[in-house]
């Protein structure tokens, strides 16, 4: 079976500025692909190119095996939710939702049935006779979703549909979208610059920067094995600790030495990764630095660290210290005894550690 969407060597220029460079992505039916990246990296542009709303400079685009590179948006069998919702201001909610069906000449009975189904699902029945101007942000967002969902297309495109919502509503809608995806089994491409949204929704994540794909993978791959420093830093909150270190070969494995300002260096031994250059950047997630008393795995190695700041965050407490000239965050238990200005014995879990080449930023292990 051919992939539902296949983008091959796509280039997009606006005049002389290259916005997208050699994009290659493909997704299978039922996939939830999330595009993430900082503002201005070309996410919306890529989505517009997939929809056919922007002409592309080079490359090919296949939807369900058909070459759609030069096909107009209306014939691509896609539905799209826009960053700004783009509801038709003079039409009621009901008309907004049925406009696409009306244009396509679908009979009234089917229109009514679909409208009813979708408005029930999205809980917007009481709003059907209002104009978009009379809706709250969250309601507009659901109407915009509804307009896409009545269509039952091959591919859904979402451009940051939750970016305008408050934190609580955003979490609710995120869950709703996930449920929707599981219920419909639809294929989706979803743009966001919120990496939590990306982790929770995606079956596959594309991390972009400056119009170039940095990494494609499942959320777990992206999180656990970031391909370079940019991805490591971008995905995860709090961000992965990226600490400059020196390595030495010793009998048992690789000896990792992390300098400290007012104390002896921390020395850790990695038994698995034995082929590292002398200078590396070691990437450790905050949750892999824990209270020594609570450490479980065999890979842990302990060290006393001077804690600078303690930030309780409900379920966890984050402790910040200085290692290798960087702020390093550890994710400690809520009931931790750590206190600012005192030393705490911490355990470093090297089981999921990442190493990066300092110059190129590329992953080493």
């Amino acid at each position, binding site marked *: 079976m051919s992939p539902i969407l296949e983008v091959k060597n796509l280039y997009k220029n606006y005049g002389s500025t290259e916005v997208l460079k050699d994009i290659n992505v493909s997704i299978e039916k039922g996939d939830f692909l999330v595009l993430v990246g900082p503002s201005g990296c070309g996410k919306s542009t890529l989505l517009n190119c997939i929809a056919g*709303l922007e002409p592309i400079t080079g490359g090919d685009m296949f939807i369900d095996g058909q070459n759609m590179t030069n096909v107009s*948006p*209306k014939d691509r069998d896609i539905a799209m939710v826009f960053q700004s*919702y783009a509801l038709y201001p*003079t039409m009621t909610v009901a008309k907004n939702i049925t406009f696409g069906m009306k244009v*396509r000449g679908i009979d009234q009975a089917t229109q009514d049935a679909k409208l009813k189904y979708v408005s029930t699902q999205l809980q917007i029945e009481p709003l059907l006779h209002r104009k*978009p101007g009379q809706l709250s942000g969250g309601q507009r967002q659901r109407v915009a979703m509804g307009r896409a969902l009545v269509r039952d297309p091959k591919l859904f495109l979402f451009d940051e549909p939750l970016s305008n919502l408050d934190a609580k509503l955003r979490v609710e809608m995120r869950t709703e979208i996930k449920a929707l995806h599981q219920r419909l089994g639809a294929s989706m491409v979803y743009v966001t610059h919120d990496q939590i949204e990306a982790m929770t929704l995606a079956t596959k994540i594309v991390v972009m920067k400056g119009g170039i794909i940095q990494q494609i993978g499942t959320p777990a791959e992206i999180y656990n094995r970031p391909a370079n420093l940019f991805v490591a830093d971008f995905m995860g909150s709090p961000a992965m600790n990226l600490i400059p270190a020196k390595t030495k070969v010793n009998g048992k494995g690789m000896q990792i030495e992390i300098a400290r300002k007012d104390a002896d260096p921390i020395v850790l031994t990695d038994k698995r990764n034995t082929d590292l250059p002398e200078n590396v950047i070691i990437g450790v997630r905050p949750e892999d630095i824990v209270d020594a008393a609570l450490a479980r795995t065999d890979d842990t190695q302990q060290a006393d660290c001077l804690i600078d700041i303690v930030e309780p965050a409900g379920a966890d407490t984050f402790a910040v210290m200085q290692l290798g000239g960087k702020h390093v965050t550890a994710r400690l238990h809520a009931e931790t005894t750590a206190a600012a200005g005192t030393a705490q014995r911490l355990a470093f879990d090297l089981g999921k550690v990442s190493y990066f080449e300092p110059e190129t930023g590329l992953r080493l292990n």
Partner: protein
Amino acid sequence: MTDMSYAPTRTQSPTTKLVLRFILYILLGVFALFYLMPLFVMITTSLKSLDEIRTGDLVSLPREVTFDAWRTAWSGACTGIQCEGMRPYFLNSLLIAIPAVLISTIIGALNGYVVAQWKFKGANIFFALLLFGCFIPFQVVLLPMAIVLGKLGISGTIPGLIFVHVIYGLGFTTLFFRNYYVSIPSELTKAAKVDGAGFFRIFWSIFLPLSLPIIVVSVIWQFTQIWNDFLFGVSFSQAGTQPVTVALNNIVNSTTGVKEYNVDMAAAIIAALPTLLVYVVAGKYFIRGLTAGSVKG
């Protein structure tokens, strides 16, 4: 307590304020009177008999109100050899202005829609040239236009005048609609494209319903321009197709013997009435349309 004294030192006392207000209103009143004076003279003169005009004061109210002058102006005054008054020419002006206003507004709306929302190669140059067209003086186009009208076989006809006014108005109407439509987010067009709508469908279903304020602006502007036009009217018409402005000129200039000021005044008011009416009826939309902001989705 010290906070209480912390107030701007240059506040005016209530009396000063009142006096200033008073002076302001007096001044405004004087200006209003100044501008209304000609209209006042026109109306009173048109209601006087010739005798009274000759003997009386220019600014005095009519001793005896008579509508004879109006009747003559409407259906009896002579424009050269014919003596049918303003009526046939008034009709001509309507026949010219209404289609010309409608056509130039519709085409301007489509032009503006294309330039603002369907950016094509050279759209900016196209728009710049159209704008340039707005500022070409009438006199410059007279001769070429006469030749074009001749080639099209519509010189001296009402369709010919409609054509001239449509062409000349397009620059303005396109400008109005373009500026209005650029403030509409392009994602609206994109959404409609994804929904399967084409060029005209998007215009009809999405842009036109948003356009009332700017349509009013365009209609008022075009109507005033076309109705008040004299140069095109006098250049491209012939006996029988002349607009009201040309007829007015002829009435005023072609009276032999005694000058009938009252008829002239009545004729002038008749010629100006439709534009006045349009402003009174739609004036507030005009202001609103000119200042209308972007559309909230």
